[in-house]
């Protein structure tokens, strides 16, 4: 990458991750994974189920320690920079006893012990910007799945993190809502220029959103290939009709479904 000299927003260097499974055997989840994400970059992780995508994100949030290698945020150890990271889960994971606004403010409450009027104003502005303005005082179960997921994104954004980690955030949504949420996310990203690492099972979704798509191979997870997406920004519905869009999704599919002879072809096509 050209910005190789600048400090990456987050990096994994030679990371190995082994888990002890219940029967005592060791499961190797990640094998020698190295990845650097530049500030402001949008990177997606795709790959078969169980290849270690969630594990990679958990390493960056410091939930687990790499068996070997190291993870860094903005050039410093993960623990030192955790407040620069926001996390969006596959399920909205809202606390059902708190109003939407209080859910969004939960990270503030945890970090500072209490919530001030300025925080509330910020939370309401965030909710307003994602179309949830009128729902601030509602309980989560009064919202649809897509709205709950948007509230979950607001919660990740409340501390204005530099890095947003998203683990299949739209996985539980219907196709239509999912597409809308993608453009919503692109809008947020366009406005605030976060670094985003986005895990998904949908190849078109990854291509539509990302600057680069990281394709991982099945267990033990390794990076099979990194596919740059040359589509112009801002991306719109029309972007999906561009030849480059098709070329990228096809390239990624080929990497995932078969890579002996075609690999050379993919390399040539890019």
């Amino acid at each position, binding site marked *: 990458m050209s910005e190789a000299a600048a400090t990456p927003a987050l990096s994994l260097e030679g990371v190995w991750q082994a888990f002890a499974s219940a029967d005592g055997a060791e499961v190797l989840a990640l094998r020698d994974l190295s990845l650097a994400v530049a500030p402001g970059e949008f990177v997606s992780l795709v790959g078969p189920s169980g290849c270690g995508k969630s594990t990679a994100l958990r390493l960056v*949030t410091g*939930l687990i320690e790499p068996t070997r290698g190291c993870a860094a945020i903005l050039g410093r150890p993960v623990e030192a920079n*955790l407040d620069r990271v926001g*996390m969006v*889960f596959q*399920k909205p*994971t809202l*606390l*059902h*006893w708190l109003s939407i606004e209080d859910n969004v403010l*939960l*990270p503030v*409450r*945890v*970090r500072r012990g209490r919530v001030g009027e300025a925080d509330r104003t910020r939370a309401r502005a965030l909710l307003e910007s994602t179309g949830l303005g009128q729902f601030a005082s509602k*309980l989560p*179960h009064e919202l649809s799945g897509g709205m709950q997921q948007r509230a979950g994104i607001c919660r990740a954004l409340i501390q204005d993190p530099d890095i947003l980690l998203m683990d299949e955030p739209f996985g539980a949504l219907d196709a239509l809502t999912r597409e809308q949420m993608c453009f919503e996310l692109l809008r947020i990203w366009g406005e605030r220029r976060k670094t985003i690492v986005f895990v998904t099972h949908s190849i078109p979704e990854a291509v539509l959103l990302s600057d680069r798509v990281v394709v991982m191979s099945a267990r033990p997870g390794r990076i099979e290939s990194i596919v740059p997406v040359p589509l112009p920004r801002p991306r719109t519905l029309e972007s999906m009709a561009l030849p480059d869009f098709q070329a990228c999704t096809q390239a990624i599919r080929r990497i995932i479904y078969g890579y002996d002879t075609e690999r050379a072809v993919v390399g040539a096509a890019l």
Partner: protein
Amino acid sequence: MAIPALTLVALVLLWEGAVRVFGIPNYLLPAPTRVLAELDKLGVRLVPNIGATLLTVLAGFLASVVISLPLAVAIASSPFVARAVYPLLLITQSTPIIAIAPILVVMLGTGQLSRATITFLIAFFPLLVSMVTGLLSTPREAVELSRVLRTSFLQDLWLIRLPASVPFVFSGLKVAISLSVIGAVVAEFVTANKGLGYLITQSTAFFNVPLAFGSVILLSIMGVLLFQSIVLVERIFFPWAVQSERITRE
């Protein structure tokens, strides 16, 4: 509400009618009117008896809440505490409390302390179990969220695990309050000089079955009212818990 009330009225009428038509003697089954007359005879002297029982119920109930909560937190937070404490709890639970009640009276005296302790021993275990279950059944995602946010132990407890366990706590409280009434009566059977349980032993000793029936009815009313006040507290202060209970039941 109307249908249960109607069933109750019908049942009482049937009871009254049956006793009169078949001429059932008082010591076998007193008619409702006879029971009422007997209660009326005692009049205001019922008040200290009701008060004494209520005091025992509430003392035992509050003790079980105050002791169960920290114990549940300790058990749910530390597998070591869980393993150390559970066998003891199981022993106290498989021992019939009624059997050790007279021993407790010898140890703790014939006063309120003994009665409250007996009530507590009968009521606290189901409450403890539901509290532990509640604390351990925090949704996995909420646990993960809590860890990502780097909550301290107390923040995790206060912001996430305790609120998540509220529906469980309340179903435990409902069981505990009903058991507390039973416990108080048992305690009064063993040692008391007033109270509704005491009235039952005294009146049956003198074959005053109508008064015993009256005391039982007062006890049931007390139990229902106490149970309903817990339901009310939950509705007023934790409406979302009532909601989630309804959702999980459906």
